[in-house]
């Protein structure tokens, strides 16, 4: 919300400096977004007179001007403007001046061999308008040498504040003035005084005949004089003639109140300079007096209005629901197709106006408008918000209606607009039609003044509280300890005691809040993280300690990736096609990161991520599974001087990575089942799952399927693993005691066995069989050689196993060892393994 300092002071009587005002705005919740003074850019420009104008010796269309800028020197300026004649008073810019409308800095130069020092400027060059046909012509009595910024009264800082959605009252300058006044920065001027003052500012541009005919008191037809009968006008006592227009609302939900007045016989010329200047200062383009007046009242009071050219209407105006598919050509030049939840303003020809959001192109006021109808309606905020969201159409009016305009300000707002139209455009006003009722009932709430300290943390004296509330327009009844607070109609957002506290403390200043320590928690030793959170933290650091780099990848993947990896949740409005499906695997994100790293020249990529996979539960809610994903690609070991060559990752590295994580999670890895079905994105012959029981999959790992590898554009082999953290059993007991343990007193013994077996038999089965052959004595079995080729029959392999035996009470004798050995050979024999001779 932008406004100028002078505009604010129209409502606020204050001696405060600009800095005091802007700091206070932020302090009371109207955060300052910026201050800009349009005069700053105009300071070097001065009012100057053309002393003489001669033909340029070398160019037909150029003239040589001698310009007096009041500095005592005269400047020779080459100028091509057709109106650059002797005696003209205009705006001069000396060399070194930056010209905003042309985006260049003036230098002394030669034009067609004649020296030119400085420039006489057009309106476009000063960004006053798009006018560029000639240079600015000021009145002859404009003081030569005066800064143009001062002459044009541009020295009026523009203040921009961000207005939070609850502060609908501050969508107009008057509301901001009221807040500032409450905070002690000045006094809010009475509404009548403000309006009278604005009207007295206004200088009638031209007499208007219809008005003169009916109102002899202004019959003089003085050009450029003040319309005295409207000076100090009581807006509740506007001269009126004739019935109000026949308007009605058939949509009491969307538009419960529709007020209107007509003004006949207007002249829709440009609006007065002061109004144009204010509008322009805050970035609005002046259009015509009628349109500018409605904009001005909206910005001044937060009260949107709309004017219709009565000549363009057919029949009476009615607020109604749109017919499904009904189209409106809006003022922005676009056509909108509406549905039957939206409110329109229509006549017999159809809908013209998207109610409360944007007027129609067909019925708006133009230069030739003579009779106008001014609409002042109340549109329901929720309805406006929905319509605006559906149409993706935003406007100043929508912003105000969807926050909720003051429902008790319809007649006043319409009166102010009517008075301004009469004053600026002339004409004859009708009576006001008031169709329907706005929800302007007065609400009261109970408030305990202690709440200010028990909730807001500031102890504010009762009298102070009352003073602040009154200044903001609240009524306070202190008849009992619990006050009854009357809420002003412009504060729709205030519904409870907490809101009252907020009003008081924001005006008082949040810097008055003294920090108070939270009471110390009673339970000292309680952990604050859940067991799964603790596990996640530990495994993250285990992964990092094992040489993996943590990444955070998007939770969403592309549909193409989802085709490979699956996906239950597909966004209706993705930000891009690449970020559309919620991942059910961490690998796509890791693989994309791998690809990027390889593209940047990384020779060894070791990445991990801990994050969720997103599934849909049976009841339609989200089932999110915490997972640790790992991708290994490129060199496992780089080329080095010892081996002379590099080595690549293989699927066992992925297995090792998964086992490292699971071990850290407290899982006895040796007890896990190694089974298939890692997933279709893995190489079917080089992948597996690790399971705790047939159905509980703790991890999947292996080499990536060549198809998936190709899909991600990765050239070298890729190893991957996913560890499903939520499948890992968490400690059930919080006891700290370990099971008792004493190291065995006798040394363990190692024995080697070599077996011949079919190459199709999984080595893991042999190892598990040997471990289980004599659990009392065998503590470990590990493969130390696997060999096929010379000396081994075709289709067979030689597997060498080192078995660790742990004697308990007495050392093993030869018979013991022979017996254990027989058990080992027999257990391996179940899988067809024969002891090699």
């Amino acid at each position, binding site marked *: 919300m932008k406004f100028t300092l002078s505009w604010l002071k129209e409502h606020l009587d204050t001696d405060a400096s600009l800095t005091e005002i802007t700091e206070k705005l*932020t*302090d009371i*919740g109207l955060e300052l977004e910026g201050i800009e003074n349009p005069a700053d850019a105009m300071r070097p420009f001065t009012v100057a007179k053309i002393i003489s104008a001669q033909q340029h010796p070398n160019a037909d269309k150029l003239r040589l001007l001698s310009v007096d800028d009041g500095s005592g020197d005269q400047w020779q300026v080459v100028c091509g403007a057709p109106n650059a004649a002797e005696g003209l008073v205009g705006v001069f810019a000396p060399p070194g001046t930056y010209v905003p409308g042309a985006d260049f800095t003036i230098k002394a130069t030669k034009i067609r061999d004649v020296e030119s020092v400085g420039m006489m400027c057009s309106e476009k060059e000063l960004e006053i308008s798009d006018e560029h046909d000639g240079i600015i012509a000021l009145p002859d009595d404009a003081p030569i040498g005066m800064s143009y910024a001062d002459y044009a009264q541009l020295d009026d800082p523009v203040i921009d504040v961000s207005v939070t*959605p609850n*502060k609908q009252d501050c969508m107009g300058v008057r509301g901001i003035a009221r807040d500032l006044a409450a905070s002690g920065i000045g006094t809010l001027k009475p509404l009548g005084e403000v309006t009278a003052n604005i009207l007295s500012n206004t200088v009638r541009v031209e007499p208007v005949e219809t008005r003169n005919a009916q109102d002899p008191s202004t019959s003089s037809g003085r050009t450029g004089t003040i319309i005295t009968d409207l000076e100090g006008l009581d807006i509740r006592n506007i001269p009126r003639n004739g019935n109000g227009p026949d308007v009605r609302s058939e949509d009491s939900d969307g538009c419960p109140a529709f007020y209107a007045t007509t003004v006949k016989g207007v002249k829709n010329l440009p609006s007065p300079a002061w109004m144009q200047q204010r509008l322009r200062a805050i970035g609005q383009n002046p259009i015509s007096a009628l349109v500018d007046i409605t904009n001005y009242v909206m910005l001044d009071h937060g009260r949107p209005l709309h004017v219709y050219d009565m000549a363009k209407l057919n029949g009476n105006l009615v607020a109604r629901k749109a017919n499904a598919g009904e189209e409106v050509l809006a003022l922005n030049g676009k056509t909108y197709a509406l549905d039957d939840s939206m409110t329109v303003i229509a006549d017999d020809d159809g809908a013209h106006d998207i109610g409360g959001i944007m007027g129609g192109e067909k019925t708006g006021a133009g230069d030739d408008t003579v009779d106008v109808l001014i609409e002042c309606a109340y549109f329901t905020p*929720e309805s406006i918000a*929905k319509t605006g*969201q559906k149409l993706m159409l935003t406007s100043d009016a929508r912003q105000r209606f*969807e926050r909720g305009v003051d429902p008790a300000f319809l007649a006043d707002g319409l009166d102010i607009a009517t008075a301004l139209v009469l004053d600026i455009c002339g004409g004859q006003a009708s009576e006001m039609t008031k169709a329907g009722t706005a929800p302007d009932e007065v609400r009261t709430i109970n408030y305990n003044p202690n709440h200010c300290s028990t909730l*807001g*943390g500031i102890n504010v004296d009762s009298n102070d509280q009352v003073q602040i509330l009154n200044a903001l327009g609240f009524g306070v009844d202190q008849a009992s300890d619990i006050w009854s607070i009357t809420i002003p109609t412009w504060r729709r957002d205030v519904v*409870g005691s*907490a*809101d009252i506290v*907020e009003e008081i403390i924001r005006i008082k200043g*949040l*810097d008055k*809040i*003294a*920090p*108070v320590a*939270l009471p110390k*928690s009673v339970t000292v030793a*309680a952990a604050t*993280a859940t067991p799964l959170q603790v596990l996640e933290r530990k495994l*993250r650091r285990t*992964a*990092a300690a094992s*040489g*993996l*780099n*943590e*990444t955070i*990848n998007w*939770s*969403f993947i592309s549909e193409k990736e989802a085709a490979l990896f699956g996906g239950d*949740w*597909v*966004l*209706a*409005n993705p930000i891009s096609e690449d*970020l559309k499906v*919620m991942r059910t695997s961490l690998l796509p*994100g890791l693989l994309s990161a*791998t690809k*990027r790293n390889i593209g*940047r020249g*990384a020779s060894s990529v*070791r*990445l*991990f991520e*801990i994050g*969720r996979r*997103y599934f849909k539960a049976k*009841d*339609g*809610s*989200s089932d*999110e599974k915490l997972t640790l994903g790992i991708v290994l690609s490129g060199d496992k070991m780089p080329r*080095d001087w010892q081996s002379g060559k590099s080595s690549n990752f293989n699927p066992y590295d992925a297995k090792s990575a998964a086992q490292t994580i699971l071990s850290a999670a407290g899982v006895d890895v040796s007890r896990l089942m190694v089974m298939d079905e890692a997933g279709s994105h893995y190489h079917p012959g080089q992948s597996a799952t690790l399971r705790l029981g047939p159905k509980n999959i703790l991890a999947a790992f292996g080499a990536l399927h060549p198809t998936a590898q190709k899909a991600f554009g990765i050239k070298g082999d890729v190893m991957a693993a996913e560890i499903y953290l939520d499948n890992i059993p968490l400690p059930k007991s919080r006891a700290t005691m370990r099971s008792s343990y004493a190291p065995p007193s006798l040394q363990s013994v190692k024995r080697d066995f070599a077996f011949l077996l079919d190459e199709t038999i999984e080595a893991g089965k042999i190892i598990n069989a040997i471990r289980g052959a004599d659990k009392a004595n065998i503590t470990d079995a590990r493969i130390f050689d696997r060999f096929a080729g010379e000396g081994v029959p075709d289709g067979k392999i030689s597997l060498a196993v080192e078995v660790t035996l742990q004697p308990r009470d007495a050392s093993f004798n030869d018979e013991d060892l022979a017996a254990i050995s027989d058990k080992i050979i027999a257990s391996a024999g179940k899988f067809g393994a024969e002891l090699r001779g």
Partner: protein
Amino acid sequence: MDIENIQNDYLARVEAAADIESLDAIRVDAIGKKGEISLLLKTLGKMTPEERNVQGPIINGARTMIADVIAARKEALETAALNARLASERLDMSLPAPQRHSGSVHPVSQVMDELTEIFADLGFAVAQGPEVEDDWRNFTALNIPETHPARAMHDTFYFPDKDAQEREMLLRTHTSPVQIRTMMDVAKRTDGKGEPIRIIAPGRTYRSDSDATHTPMFHQVEGLVIDKAIHMGHLKWTLETFVRAFFERDDIELRLRPSYFPFTEPSAEVDVGFSVEKGKRIIGGDRQGKEGGENGGWMEILGSGMVNPKVIENCGLDPNEWQGFAFGCGIDRLAMLKYGMDDLRAFFDGDLRWARHYGFDAHDVPTLSGGLSGKGAAA
């Protein structure tokens, strides 16, 4: 030949021996079983006691001397041989050793651990909730009506799906639905009676927004305290304590500004004072420009307020009995401000070079005793 000459002869030979083998041959010649001196010793038996008294010490002395000299010479030769071997075994120790790969922890994870530590000390538990949420918990229960601008398609990622209760499913736009879940859980567990709550809820959040300073996925931490007599003074203290602990300096000022969030009332945005040192913004200090360029000032870092009574009521607790505060803060931004990263997009790119530069060693677990960033106490 008299004994002295024999002795001198051997001493000279020992002196001249070049290696262990020739030394051993000399030993055999002199004091071996049939060595010259050993043979002389045997002659002692045939001597008269008088002769023996004279010759005994002389011959034995010669034997001892020769044995000692041989031992000394042997040690010298062995030392020389070892030195020669060691010299031959010299390696170029400047050659590189096999490298252990060191991984890294992402700064966002590190900061989450830091936050967990800080708030654990204040008695806040860590709460979590789903990222695919329903619109009731993400919006309605938080007093964000259907017509609030935050609900527009523009900001929120929606799914076409509805859950069993016909609620629209979406990606949570903030961590605030965890407030709702926590309060509802408490209401359910206590049969609506309620009990004090202190939680933080860090996690992923999503908004349909992407430019230099916004990513469609980002991280937030939510804080919630519910009790009977909690007011804005407690909020201010908690935030001050948190910010000072997090940035690890005491000279940090906080400024609360009135603002508006539908789920808090009163609401405040919180600015933190910053100074400019060496061209970078440093949280804390005297808020003055130090480098002649940018001035210090205030920077907004989080939103907060007293939980709106309607929200408490929506969760099944009695707002006349329970009140408290909530706050929400961007974790990525906290990480950037503390550790000096300036590109948010790099957080989600997975660039190994970035990870090695800005990531943390696995063993740098944040602790309060070591200073969260592991720098220890100031000297």
